[in-house]
């Protein structure tokens, strides 16, 4: 009883209740504003007098609900596939590169910085074309899908490596020393102590990179892959319904990006646990 009163008094002192109310009020206004903006956008689209029947007819193909004529996945499903595979490969490349960047070994450091500089310093489009069109000249012939995956992985791996490196460097040295003093081996320190703390810092910029990658995957349409952007353009060209098809593609990209952002938000919360409770104190 006395304890309850104390807790309640403490909560009132810290202004806990008004803060919760303020937070939900803020959230409601955000949603309301989003709704207004979405309605404005929809109204604008209506004013364009679009042919929604045609969009509805092509939507299953754009979304990739049906297989392409070659029996392979197409549309948004192919876009997601390219993004997901490139994401995993880029992550692997980035971790190795970041390790090289943080290494005392001059050769490892040089390899990592050289790679990162080269792939960050040249346009993705040029990289895609070199891998797909120029490599056959020296006898290396890669398919469109393979070329696209390699280019996206190498390009984004270079950016992601810097993100990972900066996250690892932001962890105070004392964390590593405390873990070392407990006799934890090097790999375990990264796995259990510094890595998870760095992830909290890495996730937001990495999430932004993956959203960006999702959209840059449209570049592989020039390799003849029937992904979302390619399909939208072909249908548009065939029917002169450019506005319909491109807007539909844009909306699908947007929806996918929002899903990525939600996943990123969840992960951020998951790895921010200790920090979030500390802030609430």
């Amino acid at each position, binding site marked *: 009883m006395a304890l309850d009163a104390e807790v309640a008094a403490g909560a009132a002192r810290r202004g806990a209740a008004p803060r919760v109310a303020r937070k939900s009020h803020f959230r409601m206004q955000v949603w309301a504003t989003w709704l207004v903006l979405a309605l404005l956008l929809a109204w604008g689209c209506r004013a364009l007098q679009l042919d929604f029947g045609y969009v509805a007819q092509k939507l299953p193909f754009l979304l990739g609900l049906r297989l392409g004529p070659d029996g392979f996945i197409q549309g948004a499903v192919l876009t997601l596939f390219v993004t997901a595979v490139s994401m995993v490969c880029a992550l692997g490349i980035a971790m190795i590169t970041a390790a090289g960047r943080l290494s005392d070994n001059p050769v490892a450091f040089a390899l990592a910085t050289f790679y990162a500089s080269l792939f960050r310093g040249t346009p993705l489009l040029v990289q895609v074309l070199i891998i797909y069109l120029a490599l056959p000249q020296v006898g290396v012939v890669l398919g469109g899908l393979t070329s696209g995956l390699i280019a996206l992985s190498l390009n984004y791996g270079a950016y992601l490596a810097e993100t990972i490196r900066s996250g690892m460097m932001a962890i105070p040295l*004392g964390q590593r020393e*405390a873990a*070392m*003093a*407990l006799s*934890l081996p090097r790999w375990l320190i990264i796995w259990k102590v510094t890595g998870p*703390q760095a992830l909290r810092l890495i996730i937001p910029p990495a999430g932004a990179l993956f959203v960006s990658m999702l959209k840059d995957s449209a570049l592989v349409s020039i390799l003849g892959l029937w992904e979302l952007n390619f399909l939208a353009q072909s249908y548009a060209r065939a029917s002169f319904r450019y506005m319909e098809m491109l807007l539909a593609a844009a909306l699908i990209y947007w929806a996918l990006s929002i899903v990525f952002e939600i996943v990123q938000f969840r992960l951020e919360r998951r790895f921010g646990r*200790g*920090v979030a409770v*500390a802030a609430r104190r």
Partner: protein
Amino acid sequence: MADLVSIDRINKWHGSLHALRDVSLAVAPHERLVICGPSGSGKSTLLRCINGLETYDSGEVIVDGTRLTNDSRTALGVRREVGMVFQSFNLFPHMTVLENCVLAPIWVRNTPRLEAEELARSYLDRVHVGAQAGKYPGQLSGGEQQRVAIARALCMAPKIMLFDEPTSALDPEMINEVLDIIVGLADTGMTMVCVTHEMAFARRVADRIVFMDRGEIIEQGPPAEIFDAPRTDRLKAFLSSILKDLR
């Protein structure tokens, strides 16, 4: 009995700075050693040489029969037996208090989780933070965090405990709650080496006080000798500078 720590004429340079000059020191089992001296005198560097957090350029450090070399494997072996408490606590902020305490016992000592948790809870109770086991370090006060850090080190059942200015980052009202725990630990016969500026604590707990200045051990002896009959001018100057407030 053989010395638990034996340091033989070690030297260390930080660039052009001679951080440790021919320092020799032995710590016997159950001995409670306090290292004091002005800042930059090499006390922390010396302490960190005992568990290999700091390397040295010449000389020899033998801990519990193992000679510490630059090979990281020897350091891993030594660190299993040497607990350390840092000035800035260095708890892992993404883990709960209990997780902080069981991490090393589970992964390094292969203690089953339940057993490790039981042990951790008993140590957390001993440092009076048992009720906070499920909280994150960020939710605790500085004094509580430092007591958790002590419990975390004790969970590895170390043969020797190192304290690197354990109360220097604490608000004044929390210093005693941490010192009391260290005194209690000293009473159990734990071997310990403590770098501190808390002279009243040093006098109370230390078997021997080592005074360092500019990378050298200037004077050492039991607290009564060091405080009441300092022989060197440097120690006299140091004592008068820190005890000024007390007079």
